[in-house]
């Protein structure tokens, strides 16, 4: 199965996401539980000193409003670490609240550095009147694609967002732009977007949100994607997850080609996926856990208050 290796071949210097951090509730505030900051030590330092109350700053806003929040300019906004971010060149951020039923488990914040060459997309789709429309998104240099997305909507079952919405599971789509006609493919192709990961973002109150991460070759959001199914209805136990889909620049497809139930299995507390399984809280790691990549993020997705899936991306 070495044929998928050519999906991405070069080793780009830049990634789309510069910083990922995990904020968890402690008492009535959000505190930093982990993060990967790359070279941005000063921003890391500023973050460690910070906590957020409900509604305060970007993480507090995602918590209070119970929805993913995109922030494309820090100056003059509610963003609390503007000065530290400016010094290291971080210009935009997306905050994703992780709820299990009504309980907030964490807020994941990803920060990006703007320039004219970084292409990718982090989108938030929201349902209104039976249709998903773009609530907001961060696209880097993919401005035409941004315009197309703003003017696109998805009924149930259609496209990556509509597929995630109706299937209630994360979905990993390949080759968004080239041979495979992603609903917005023409524009996605021009923007160099190749792989798309869509995740349902459950929130209290029944609103529907779908988050999509669209990755481009030159400045990938990730070089390895994994979707783990943790539902007891699929695995037979509360303490394990099966790797049901995934693709890796180095290892190729990560799914079981025989469809014979021989998927890789992660068990609670073993490795970063196991930690997410055991705690229901996302992780962001470097080092050995990142399997040779600079960093990895593993995010739980709950359904009906129970952990249902874990998605992980490595870059």
């Amino acid at each position: 199965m070495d044929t998928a290796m050519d999906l991405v071949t070069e080793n780009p210097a830049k990634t789309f996401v510069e910083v990922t951090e995990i904020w968890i509730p402690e008492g009535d505030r959000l505190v930093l539980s982990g993060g990967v900051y790359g070279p941005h030590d000063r921003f890391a330092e500023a973050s460690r000193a910070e906590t957020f109350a409900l509604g305060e700053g970007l993480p507090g806003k995602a918590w209070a409003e119970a929805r993913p929040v995109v922030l494309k300019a820090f100056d003059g906004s509610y963003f609390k670490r503007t000065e530290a971010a400016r010094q290291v060149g971080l210009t935009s951020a997306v905050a994703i609240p992780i709820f299990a039923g009504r309980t907030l488990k964490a807020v994941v914040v990803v920060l990006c550095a703007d320039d004219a060459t970084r292409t990718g997309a982090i989108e938030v789709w929201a349902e209104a009147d039976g249709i998903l429309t773009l609530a907001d998104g961060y696209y880097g240099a993919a401005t035409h694609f941004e315009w197309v997305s703003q003017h696109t909507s998805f009924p149930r079952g259609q496209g990556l967002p509509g597929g995630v919405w109706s299937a209630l599971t994360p979905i990993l789509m390949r080759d968004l732009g080239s041979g495979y006609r992603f609903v917005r493919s023409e524009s996605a192709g021009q923007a160099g977007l190749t792989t798309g990961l869509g995740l349902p973002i459950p929130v209290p109150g029944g609103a529907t949100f779908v988050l999509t991460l669209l990755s481009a070759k030159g400045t990938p959001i990730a070089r390895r994607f994994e979707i783990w199914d943790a539902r007891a209805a699929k695995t037979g136990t509360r303490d394990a997850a099966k790797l049901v889909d995934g693709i890796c620049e180095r290892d190729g497809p990560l799914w079981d080609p025989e469809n014979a139930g021989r998927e890789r299995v992660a068990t609670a507390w073993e490795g970063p996926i196991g930690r997410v399984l055991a705690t229901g809280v996302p992780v962001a790691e470097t080092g050995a856990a990142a399997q040779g990549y600079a960093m990895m993020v593993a995010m739980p997705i709950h359904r009906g208050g129970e952990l249902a899936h874990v998605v992980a991306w490595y870059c």
Partner: protein
Amino acid sequence: MERLVVIGAGMASGRLLEHLVEADPNAYAVTLFNAEPRGNYNRIMLSPVLSGEKSYAEIVTHDDAWYARHGVTCRFGERVESIDRDRNVVVGAKGEVPYDRLVLATGSDAFIVPCPGHDLDGVIAYRDLDDTNRMIDTAPGSRAVVIGGGLLGLEAAAGLRMRGLEVTVLHLAGHLMERQLDPAAGYLLRADLERRGITVMTQAATKCIRGDGAVEAVELEDGTILPADLVVMAVGIRPSVALAKQSGLAVNKAIEVDAQMRTSDPSIFAVGECIEFAGQLFGLVAPLYDQAKVLAATLLGQDAAFTPKQLSTKLKVTGCDLFSAGDFADGPGREDIVYRDPARGIYKRLVVEDDTLVGAVMYGDTADGNWFFGLIKDGTDIAEMRETLIFGPAYQGGATADPLAAVAALPADAEICGCNGVCKGQIVTAIEGGATDLGAVRATTKASASCGTCTGLVEQVLAATLGDAFQMPTAQPVCGCTDLSHEDVRRLIKARELKSQPAVWQELGWSTPNGCHVCRPAVNFYLLADWPLDYQDDPQSRFVNERKHANIQKDGTFSVVPRMWGGITTAAELRAIADAADKYDVPTVKVTGGQRIDLLGVKGEDLPAMWADLNAAGLVSGHAYSKGLRTVKTCVGTDHCRFGTQDSTGLGIRLEKRLWGSWTPHKVKLAVSGCPRNCAEATCKDVGIVCVDSGYEIGVGGAAGMDVKEVQPLVKVATEDAAVEWTVAFVQLYREHAKYLDRPYKWLAKVGLDWVQQTLGDAAERTALVERFDLSQTIYQTDPWAELAMREKARAFAPIADLTLEAAE
């Protein structure tokens, strides 16, 4: 080195080559022909490629480098024209290749329904990468019709929907994937697909495909026209055997092979979908791989024999979790174990015969599928674990499941009422705060106040919290299949818009796969009364009299009663009845209390012909057997009687013509008397109208059977039109609210006359009831005799019919 030629580079021959090169890379010099211009790829993963969830690169099993590394000479994109068995040579389009051994792995072709228009541009099958790419290249927003609701068709539909198309699936059978799923699982699958925006039409037969050069629409047998830009035929496959036939090999439905995969020519072998072994064909990948392994051994001179095994099914549509294995048809000696969790969309059914598991169908929770599949394959004796079998391997050896213990063990934050988001802790707090019965818990917490399916759970929380202080209510359930009462079932069918039997079984958590002889007739009635346009009447859920449209008598013969509108008949009608009595040797002719004539002692097989004769004389069925309108008894009224105050006969005829054919919870008898002397005995009928000088006194809820009841006065109206309107509205209210098999008087005792008067007293509500009744009559006011007198139906009345499989009585 011997020369091996393989025709067809599909999954079976691909696996064969893998086994060969692994076991002895130097045994054969291999030449591989493939009509497709590419090598072996994982064809069963085309569906995720179609949906965009996999790339073609990921599903290539053998790329050019693999073939080169193993010295396989590839002749891809080249069709084999013939096999010269005398010279041991395969003739390709670009030249001959000699062989010592030859393997046919020609696979199968899609079956194209030969309806008019099947050859239009835009009508495609779903077999290979080219078909897949054609679908991928269809513009988002286009309309696709997929013919065939089996595995392949549904995967195509889901993939096309992901690509942004408007998709309709047409399926000939009554539920999707009927070969792999029972109706209950088919219902859940359908709901799942509809949630994706896919339109599903069952019992849909394609008449033709319309278009001028390219496809424009699909026309169904019932006249429905579905506009379409793309038609995907996924109705089945046919083994591809032309080459084998032309070469003179033994071919039946497919190429015949022995257990070593050898054809009728000892140097020619075959594997995959193109073979027939012991009368069996193969379409799923697991047996193909087994065949490849056996053939590799045979070619290497080792002993091996192919034996077909039990198969299991999975559907590759992300988010649809189903599993099916073994045989799950109903049958004598078979027992079902059913588990349903409506809130989570879970259905599991195990079929047990002689203490072994013979079939399993699961939807929504498939975790234990492989374990059950193992039990089926191994024929394991499950007697010891029967009680907990449905809960899977995790429960074996554990304590038996006590529902109350399970509820007691639930944590405080476990959600009990999904509709209102009420957790167990809140309910317990409310109980401790003084809410000690269901009504109080409902009022305090809103738990079970919406859809009501958690009522049982809330009661269990009450019982677990209060212990003996709580008396579990004793509302009579419909039958052993459910804990819900008739009233609950009626309410939930309306509130949750349940429009099919499988929907009721699943969403209301029935403990049997398809109900029983008690609940099915009731649910069938509730569904047809509440959803006349959406629900299709199920004859198998009716009592034998209603199925046969005649009263079965104690000697097995039937009675036939034609309708006599308001008790009025003519000489011609009487002559036709007399002729029928003569022609069919009717032993007894009786005048009934309902003012009509009963022909008793008719043989079942004579019924259709007799009905046809009576129909020809203008007579229709009197529905003397049905839970529906029976008779409207009248007196002669003002036309002839000195005391008559109104045209009672005319009103009776008018009411009978309006109400006949409507199904009701129990039989309904009417009468209209022309004056208070009451010659038509109207005051002991379900609806009795007594005419007076000033108008019409309508009474309801009378009876003259085991219970004798005088009617209660419903209303007095001035005009005949008003009398008809009130009567129709009353019958409809009864149809919509009464428990099945409750006569109106029993129903009135439960709901109270006051409520009925209040409801019908509202003119708007009365009009709405009449409109709903008339709408239902557009479907149900048909003469069953006319329908059933057709010759082909006559077979169902032949005396050899197997009545053991039928539902009721």
